[in-house]
Every structure is written in structure tokens, then in C-alpha cells.
């Protein structure tokens, strides 16, 4: 991985752009923090990076995850039941960073989690452990200043402006004016929600996402990522043909739950292997020469 000395620009964007120059689309992989344990979370993040994931999106467990389908809901519930706290998420990231993994890491966090933890404290902890971006699925542009303003204040005070991106999210229901409003001031990548609905694997990439990606591209040069519903290498390839990056979540979480539930004592080890294999196969679809991914 390239080292980044200049911290005033989004590391996420730089990383994705560097890949694009080599003919690679980026793979963004999601897991729920603390599912099934903090130790596993640290290991699975490392394994996903090793297997070719460009960016890891780590879900902070919340009791009422409105934007998520049953698979990720269940992971949230189990993580909370196992005693996962918001502060443990920062601890997990800190451990990953201390082992030399420098790829971009973003948190998926619901607004109530941020608010209850303390917005300033949350952002300061993000800066401290090396979080590069935040996806807040229930923070529309109308309310974005609640995070954007303290984010700018805190990163500027730390002399690291732009170090943390507030990831803009657009949906097929957004008209052009709304897309423009959402993109304004955004950085990192644009999260294009592929279809109306919640997270979860779908059989096909919905046709409407093509139109959405086109409308976004016409208005920004921030890298464009497609998420929601991408659950197999073929769909990943299709999404990759369309966008700069592909976000994959539910299929990884369900792979973990399958192995952990059925695997007995060796379940977590098997889950790591299975996630590694899955991530490799997804990344292989996103590089110009598939052998590049396998050589990692």
C-alpha cells in the first residue's frame, strides 16, 4: 500500500483513484463490529484487507437499524447481546491499525449512536484511531450540519482537515436537485443505494442504478460506489462495470453467521477462511487482470 503523507485530502479517494489508474475497481466490504466478538472483528477486518478489500466499512451495532435487512439486523442484535459497546468499536480499529493495516476504514453508524456517545467525542475518537469516513444512513442532507460542522471544527483544530469524510448517500428516488444538494461538500466516495429498500442480497442489480450512477457522475468527480443488493461475483462484476467501487455487506455477514452457528468450536476460524475466499472472488471480478488479485 502507498503511504499517504498528505493528510488534507481524503485517503479514501486517493486509494480508490490509485486503484483505478491500475485498472482496478475498488471493493468495499462491510461487517458488523462485535459480531460475534471483538476479537473476531479485528481478525476479519485484517483478513478482508489481505484478501483484496480496498476499504472496510465497519457497522457500529444499533438496536434499531432502520436501513438494514434481516441479516445485518440479526448481527446488530447479537453484537449488542454479547456486550459490544461503541467504545469497543474504536478499540477494534485501533488494534487493526497497530498491526500495520493502513487501508481506509469507514464506520457505518446510526445517528442516535453518534448523539448518545457525544458527537465531538465520537469524532475525536475517529480521528484518534484512524477512521477515514462515516456513513450515517439516517442523516439526510437536511440534518447533515449536525455532524459536518463539528467534523470540520475538530479536524481543523487537529490540523487534519478532510481527514474524515462524511460519505454522501444518494438513492434512486432522489431527483437531480437533491442529488446536487447531497453531493455538495461530500468526499470519500458517493454511496449509491442501488434500489429502494434495505440492505440484503438481491438476485439482480436493479436497472435504475445505471441511471442514478450516470446522474451522479455528471455532477461530481468523487469516486462512485454502488451498494445494497450486491451478493455474488457476477453482480459485483456488473456493479464494477458501472461504478468505481462496489460495496458488499449482507453476504459477508451471512457467511459469518453460517459458519459461526454451524461450526462449533472451529466456527470462527472457518468463518475467517470463508470470508477471505469470498472477498478474493469478489475482488477478482473488479480487476482488469484477475491474476493480479490472486497474486496478493
Amino acid at each position: 500500500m502507498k503511504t499517504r503523507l498528505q493528510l488534507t485530502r481524503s485517503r479514501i479517494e486517493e486509494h480508490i483513484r490509485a486503484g483505478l489508474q491500475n485498472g482496478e475497481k475498488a471493493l468495499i466490504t462491510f461487517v458488523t463490529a462485535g459480531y460475534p466478538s471483538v476479537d473476531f472483528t479485528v481478525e476479519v477486518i485484517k483478513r478482508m484487507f489481505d484478501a483484496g478489500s480496498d476499504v472496510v466499512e465497519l457497522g457500529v451495532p444499533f438496536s434499531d437499524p432502520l436501513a438494514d435487512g434481516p441479516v445485518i439486523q440479526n448481527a446488530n442484535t447479537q453484537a449488542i447481546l454479547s456486550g459490544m459497546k461503541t467504545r469497543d468499536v474504536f478499540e477494534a480499529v485501533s488494534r487493526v491499525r497497530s498491526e500495520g493495516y493502513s487501508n481506509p476504514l469507514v464506520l457505518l453508524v446510526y445517528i442516535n449512536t453518534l448523539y448518545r456517545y457525544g458527537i465531538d467525542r465520537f469524532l475525536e475518537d475517529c480521528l484518534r484511531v484512524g477512521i477515514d469516513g462515516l456513513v450515517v444512513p439516517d442523516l439526510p442532507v437536511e440534518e447533515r450540519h449536525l455532524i459536518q460542522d463539528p467534523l470540520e471544527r475538530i479536524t481543523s483544530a487537529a490540523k487534519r482537515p478532510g481527514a474524515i469524510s462524511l460519505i454522501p448517500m444518494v438513492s434512486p428516488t432522489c431527483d437531480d436537485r437533491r442529488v446536487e444538494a447531497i453531493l455538495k461538500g461530500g468526499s470519500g466516495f458517493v454511496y449509491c443505494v442501488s434500489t429502494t429498500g434495505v440492505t440484503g442480497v438481491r438476485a439482480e442489480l436493479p436497472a435504475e442504478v445505471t441511471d442514478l450512477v450516470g446522474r451522479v457522475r455528471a455532477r461530481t468527480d468523487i469516486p462512485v460506489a454502488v451498494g445494497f443488493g450486491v451478493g455474488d461475483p457476477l453482480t459485483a462484476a456488473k456493479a464494477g462495470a458501472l461504478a468505481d467501487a462496489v460495496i458488499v455487506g449482507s453476504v459477508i455477514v451471512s457467511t459469518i453467521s453460517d459458519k459461526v452457528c454451524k461450526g462449533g468450536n472451529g466456527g470462527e476460524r472457518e468463518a475467517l477462511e470463508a470470508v477471505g475466499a469470498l472477498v478474493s472472488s469478489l475482488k477478482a471480478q473488479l480487476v482488469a487482470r484477475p491474476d493480479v488479485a490472486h497474486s496478493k
Partner: protein
Amino acid sequence: MNSGREAEVRATATGAVRGPEMGAGFAWGNSEPTETGRFGEYGGMFVPETVIPALHELIEAFGRLKDDPSFVAELDHYLTTYCGRPTPLYFAERLTAECGGARIYLKREDLNHTGAHKINNAIGQMLIARRLGKSRVIAETGAGQHGVAVATAAALFGIECCIYMGAEDIKRQSLNVYRMKLLGAEVRSVSSGTSTLKDAMNEAIRDWVTNVRNTHYAVGSAAGPHPYPLIVREFQSVIGREARQQILDQEKRLPDAVVACVGGGSNAIGAFHAFIPDKDVQLIGVEAGGLGLATNKHAASISGGTKGILHGSFQYLLCDEDGQITGTHSIAAGLDYPGVGPEHCMLHDTGRAKYVAVTDDEAVSAFRTLSRLEGIIPALESSHAVSYAVKMAQSMPKESIVIVNLSGRGDKDVQDIIRSQDSKIGEMTV
């Protein structure tokens, strides 16, 4: 005594139907939230981007329709000829005598078609859905009263209907589940989280995020993202407008207090709204104290909660330091909700309204008292308000007046009471 009582009843009936300004006559409230739906600091639109355009569509449509004479006339028509509005304001003579204090009046929302105030909002929202060309409507329900009201309105207008209900609530409100099915609605059981109203609302929002293009989400509480707290308040404010005129007709003066139960807060905001400018009228919201505020087994968001964001709105909320929504408890399924509407939060902070809590046991006791003294079986939700009103009336002078919003009837709760309560009630009902 009897003849006096009859005269009082006649006066109530006369008052209820007199004057064009009474009718179900629709007049909109005038306290508007900000453009992003803030009542003070509360409210907002904290929901996934996918449904934000639908919220804007609703803001625009409601803004237009509320001043559209044909819409107002249509709503009026259904409220009077279908729902049975205006509902009476009834002087509870024996209850008053038993308390020995303030004169207690009951605003009889239980006499609405389908047995609760919920139909006021369900009809209004269904008319909006129809004008927006939505072919399908969804709703969340706790006790099942809002679900029944929406299923009813959907049957009336021939719109496909799907109701989300917590698995726990389906168990304790089986009668309402059957009613919804009879009305042609699909009832989807929700067994995520705590399997109650909060989780039903989560699932309804997820459905809406998925089917937003053809589906209207008819929120039943004065909660949720903007503009729902405003829309629901406006459709429910008919309660307070009628009650205000009725008490002026019957007593020639305003009441000293208006008391209503608060879960999400739709009946309470509806009862309070017309009285907000009347500074001498105390407004009292009664939350579900469950097993007691000290036990953590309650649903009193204002009395026992902290600030947070759930279901699109910044509000008083029952959650832990990590923001996880904590389990709630109330014997009344319709109050078993960890949040409360943003306007109530503002009214609490400004001191215009006072919020108190009543326990399960106190509510059940009021349920029995009202049944025996007045021949009115109140919903367990409304029993919370009755309980507090009885308590406060006892220490008030005899000339003072308390209006209780009797938001719903208790038929739905009888089975549950027989099952869950001690043998005393079992014996009493035999």
C-alpha cells in the same frame, strides 16, 4: 339526582350537535414547526434518503390540501357521517361524586367508529393517500386500534392495506388482529427486537423504504419524521376543538385541566392543541409508569427518559448510554413505546404541559372504577388518564373542571385483563 343527571346528558347531547362552528367543522391549528419539522429542538427528518423525497411530497401535499375546500369538505363529510363526530363531552357524575372534588368530564373518543380516536387520523391520511395516487397503505400498530382504523379506512376507500404489529402485541390484542383481517388487511407479525410497537414501526419504515413509490405510510402516532407529527396533530386536533366548544356550551367556562394519556402522543396532542393558547388551562399528559419509574419497566419517555433520536425524530427517549433503545413495559400495548412525539417534548420543556406517570396497577384500578361507576369500559391506555384525573380531582375545589380525553374503549382489553390479572377481577367479571 337522577333527573339532574338526565338533564346533564341532554345538555351534552344538545351542545354536541349545536352550531355550525361545532359540527366536525375543520379548522387547522396555527403553531407550525420549522421547515425541517422542528418543534423547538425536537423532531426532524432522521430517516434513510430513499424516503426523504416521499416526505417532501407529503409536506407539499398536506400544505396544499389543508387549505383546499374540497379536501376539507370531504374530510368533514366522513368524520360526521362515517366516524360519528362530534363525539360527546360527558359529565361523569358518579365519578365526580366519588372523588368529591373537581367536576370530571369525559371526551368520548371511545364512541368513534372503530372505538378510538385513531380513526380521525386514519381517514385524513387515507384521503391524502388517495389524492397522491398511492395504491397501497401501510401502518404500524401497538394495541391494534390504529391498525383497525387504517384497515377500516382502507376498506372504505378500496386501498390495499398491510399492518405491522409486534408478535407480543398480537398475542395480547388478538381481537384487534381478527378485526383487521376481517376488514381485509394483511397483518404482518414482527418478531425482531422487543416484538412491540417500536419494532412494528421499524418494519413499517423498512417496507416504506422498499415500496415508497406506490405506498403511503400512515403513521398513527404524533411521532416519526416530519411531517407526520404535524399531520397527525392536525387530524387529531378536532378532539380539543370540539371539547373546548362543548365545555363552553355546557359550563360557560374553560376547564381547569385537560388530561390525556401519552404513548407516542396522538390523542393527547389532539386534545391539548386547541387549549394551548388558553394559558389558565393546565395540560397534563399521562405516561405509562408500568411497574414504576424506579424499576426500568415502564414506557415513560418524558418522565423517565433522556434525549435521543428514533424513527426519524429527536425526542425524549428510553435508551442507554450507547444509544441502544431499552425495552419498555406497559400493560397498555398502545403506550408501550420508547419515544414520544416532538411537540410533547417541546411542551414539556416550555412548561406549557406537564407530564406524569401512572403505573399498571393504578390504570387497572381506574379501568374497574370507570366501568362500575359510569358504565364505560375504557381502554387500558385511556385508563391511565382516568387514573390521574381522579387523583388530581380529589384535591381540587368542587367548582373546578377537569376534562379527560377518553381516547378509546376497553373491549379489546377485557380478555387480557381476565388472563393477566388476579382472581379478584376474574370474580368480578363472572
